[in-house]
């Protein structure tokens, strides 16, 4: 519950107009439960050899920072200005035109003016001006400069862990200023003095050690894949092969770990298993690279690299020809825009060619990793699989473009093509809420934790609002998406705002519709729910 209580003299004020018209630099941030995430536990911080492991919470008055924390951050900023042209240019060229202001889902859902992307960036820019520009040094506050103080750092913590790096604002900025880039770099700076959140740090520590964010060890991984194989058999009557750590397989398949432990991700996993069996794919899972996602990218470029390194390393060790990647959001931003740069060149792999259709994936010739939607769309186009759309007739589907596949890859038509071929009822949400203008789930970039729930509900409200619209208009009851964080955080969002809408992957729909050779008559979908008219 909210802890703020009214004082008697304020009682009358609640029904009067508010006028807190102050300069934004003078407003201090107030940490309220439900609106921030807990700090990183020392064990995980230590394991990752990150600075300043200690027990602390953001609500503590004393954050137990190193004595020279300010110099560390400013030095870190100087270093990054020299290493990232993006940062230097973005610090200098904003004209505060306000085009981005109302594009952020957090701003739209809360009305908090510091959630305008321009303000989020100004939180850093003000410090940059103070210490790195002549005008800021001379004119100070009049040039929009301010000193880095503990209150500024607290504000950074609050607002840079309130950005999901969805990049919607960057679409509308006339100079392409990318708040995700600024957020990532400020989080790097904060991590230099040990200011981080546990929902990110602990998954990263897990992934570093066990290969996946959930910390599932190799035997646990095998158990859950075996379990899924059994479950698929009870639905389809077919026992599929699911090779793990198999050397010499043609393709290495990597998907977010939530797919084999989370719901509704799990049904998508069943879809993958069914599909790979049906086309006779020579592939392997890996326990060492058992994570597609990369929470390291929510801390720093270095940790992004260090977790991402497992993909190519494992592909090399197993001697596969190329890599296929499952449904995931930020994983795909990193694979598409960072992996080759960070850990390439992948000269030990071959240029990806579909073994089923012979299609060469021309857009992946260097990175050598193909998106499952590209792969499946190609199968469908070439008539290599048979889909019985009617098996998805109990679903009225809409599609939520996950931020990263939409705005980093431009993966827009592939999933739609698959959905339209896998089900009869598909309805788009309004134009300004999908494709490159898609609204975030509100929980990306490591913010999807329960203690941060209120903030997530605010941030996800614009998305939920659009879903509600198509639900009321068309009776939509299935929100399709291709991101593991979506699958984890859209269900509570739907429960709170909309009701009666299930969340699921695109390949769950494929798995439902896929006609498999030798299968028994399907009486249920992959969720074990009766298909219309088959049970009664």
């Amino acid at each position, binding site marked *: 519950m909210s802890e*703020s209580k009214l004082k008697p003299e304020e009682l009358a004020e*609640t029904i009067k107009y508010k006028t807190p018209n102050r300069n934004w630099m003078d407003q201090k941030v107030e940490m309220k439960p439900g609106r921030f995430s807990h700090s990183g536990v020392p064990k995980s911080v230590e394991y990752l050899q990150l600075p300043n492991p200690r027990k602390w919470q953001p609500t503590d008055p004393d954050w137990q920072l190193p004595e020279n924390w300010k110099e560390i951050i400013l030095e870190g900023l100087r270093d990054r200005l020299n290493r990232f042209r993006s940062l230097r240019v973005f610090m200098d060229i904003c004209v505060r035109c306000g085009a981005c202001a*109302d594009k952020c889902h957090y701003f*739209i859902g809360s*009305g908090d003016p510091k959630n305008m992307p321009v303000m989020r960036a100004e939180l850093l820019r003000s410090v940059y001006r103070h210490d790195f520009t002549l005008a800021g040094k001379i004119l100070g506050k009049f040039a929009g400069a301010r000193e880095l103080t503990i209150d500024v750092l607290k504000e950074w913590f609050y607002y840079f862990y309130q950005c999901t790096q969805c990049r919607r604002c960057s679409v509308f900025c006339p100079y392409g200023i990318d708040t995700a880039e600024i957020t990532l770099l400020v989080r790097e700076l904060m991590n230099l003095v040990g200011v981080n959140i546990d929902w990110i740090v602990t998954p990263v520590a897990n992934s570093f050690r066990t290969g996946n964010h959930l910390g599932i060890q190799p035997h646990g991984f095998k158990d859950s894949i075996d379990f899924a194989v059994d479950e698929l058999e009870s639905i389809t009557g077919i026992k599929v092969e699911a090779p793990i750590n198999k050397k010499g397989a043609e393709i290495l398949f990597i998907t977010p770990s939530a797919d084999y432990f989370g719901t509704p991700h799990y049904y998508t996993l069943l879809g993958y298993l069914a599909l790979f069996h049906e086309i006779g794919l020579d592939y392997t899972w890996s326990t060492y690279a058992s994570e597609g996602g990369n929470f390291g990218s929510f801390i720093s470029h270095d940790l992004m690299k260090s977790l991402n390194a497992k993909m190519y390393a494992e592909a090399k060790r197993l001697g596969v020809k190329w890599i296929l990647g499952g449904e995931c959001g930020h994983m795909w931003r990193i694979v598409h825009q960072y992996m080759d740069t960070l850990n390439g060149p992948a000269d030990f792999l071959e240029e990806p060619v579909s073994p089923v259709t012979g299609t060469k994936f021309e857009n992946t010739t260097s990175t050598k990793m193909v998106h499952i939607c590209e792969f499946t769309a190609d199968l469908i186009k070439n008539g290599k699989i048979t889909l019985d759309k009617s098996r998805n007739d109990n679903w009225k589907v809409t599609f939520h473009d996950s931020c990263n596949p939409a705005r980093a890859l431009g993966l827009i038509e592939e999933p739609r093509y698959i959905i339209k071929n896998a089900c009869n009822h598909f309805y788009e949400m309004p134009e300004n809420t999908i494709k490159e203008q898609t609204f975030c789930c509100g929980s990306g970039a490591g913010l999807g934790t*329960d*203690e941060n*729930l209120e903030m997530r509900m605010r941030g996800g409200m614009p998305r939920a*609002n659009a879903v509600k*619209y198509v639900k009321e208009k068309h009776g939509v009851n299935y929100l399709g998406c291709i991101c593991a964080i979506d699958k984890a955080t859209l269900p509570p969002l739907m429960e709170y705002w909309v009701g009666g809408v299930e969340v699921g992957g695109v390949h769950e729909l494929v798995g439902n519709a896929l006609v498999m050779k030798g299968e028994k008559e399907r009486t249920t979908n992959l969720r074990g729910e009766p298909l219309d008219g088959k049970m009664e």
Partner: protein
Amino acid sequence: MNTLPEILAARKNIIVDKWAEAILSTYPHESLKFLSSQKDRFANPIGHAVRSSSEKLFDELVHGNDVEKIRASLDDFLRMRAVQDFAPSEAVGFVFMLKRVLREITAQEMTGKGQASFQDELLNFESRIDSMALVAIDLYMEAREKLSRIRIDEVKARSLLALSERQS
């Protein structure tokens, strides 16, 4: 001399506008322009909810007083207030703003000829607003409880995962 129902019918637009304006003013001042001027319901769900709920609620108070309809109109809006930066009193307090707006609008009638019967009518109408506030409190609590339940479910799912991991 006009009776209250006549006034409410004749001045509906201005009352609803003022009320909506007052509700929006509970949001940060800096965002006011956006919330009140951006009319696209997807680009500005808060503003849209305020506008559409305030009108529906007013109509229901004047004509129907159907609790279910009032609940439905209040529901979306209180769900929003329940996760935004409001104390419970602030989250629900917007209902009472309608009283203030009414008193402002009817200042003349309150003191003019026939004021006694007018005041009676107004008091009557105001108790309907009070009842609406009680419904709003219910809905606010429902939203908060739903939040807690979602949170508990998430924690449970997480500890189950931790458990199964330890056992394996």
